[in-house]
């Protein structure tokens, strides 16, 4: 009489070991000396009156700071940077932003931010933020309004 073998369970230990390897051995980890730089590109205009819910708690602040009636998130990207490393962020209208993590002390984060429009360098600035901090860079025109970049570091 043929025996019934529990063949379906045979792959489970292999799957577990593979996942544990990926988790603790193969997956890149976010070390303490790295910084997550988050850049959101917002289109601010007077076309309509909608405010993108993806803007979170910053929605009301944008409304109180600027005279636009509509704020829409066009894109959002995040790069994990270590000291000396640069992250590229593509922006609308073939613009680009480059953020380089500079050496710093404590929970302070120093970023060299360069925004270019083709060959033109629109902005070069060095920012000192705390982890969890945020700064806005705005003004470049986009369609009938402007772009506002929300730059934050964790």
């Amino acid at each position: 009489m043929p025996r019934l073998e529990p063949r379906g369970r045979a792959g489970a230990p292999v799957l577990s070991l593979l996942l544990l390897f990926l988790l603790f051995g193969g997956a890149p980890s976010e070390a303490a000396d790295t910084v997550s730089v988050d850049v959101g590109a917002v289109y601010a205009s007077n076309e309509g009156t909608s405010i993108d819910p993806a803007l979170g708690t910053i929605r009301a602040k944008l409304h109180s700071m600027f005279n636009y009636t509509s704020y829409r998130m066009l894109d959002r990207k995040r790069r994990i940077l270590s000291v000396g490393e640069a992250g590229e962020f593509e922006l609308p209208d073939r613009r680009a932003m480059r953020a380089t993590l500079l050496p710093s002390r404590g929970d302070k984060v120093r970023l060299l931010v360069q925004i270019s429009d083709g060959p033109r360098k629109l902005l070069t600035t060095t920012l000192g933020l705390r982890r969890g901090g945020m700064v806005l860079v705005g003004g470049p025109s986009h369609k009938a309004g402007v772009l506002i970049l929300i730059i934050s570091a964790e």
Partner: protein
Amino acid sequence: MDCRTALEKIASKADGLLPREAEAELSGHLAGCPACAAEDAAISATGAVLRVLTGIRARREAPALDAMWTRVRAGIEESGEARLHPSWIARWAWIPAAVALAILALLFYPAGTDRSPFHPSTFDVAVEDVESEAATVALVDKGEDLPRVIWIIEDAKT
């Protein structure tokens, strides 16, 4: 009761389907009808013979049937034990797999395009230097509870 009805009831009686009241009525008819009584005796004898033959055959086949049932039961018990007592690795393997999957999902989702809403904890930002080759740049500071703004006024477009 006529003989036709009696024959139907005799057949029912042989099949064990005749109610007691009808059986008493049938007995009354059989007592006065030798032909039906003979038919009843023949059918009853046939049933008894069949039961005896079935019993003889069952006794003859019993050892083979017992052996077959023993093998079937042993096979069922063996497969049941295999299912009830798998190795501890197979039994608990899904737990680390599930935990690893959950942590991987937390680590890598969403990796490239984080869509969780912005929740800044501070607007304390120092602008160490600022310059532009192609625009006028204004630094706007509206207080500690509002983010600092670097505003680019493109020279050719304003």
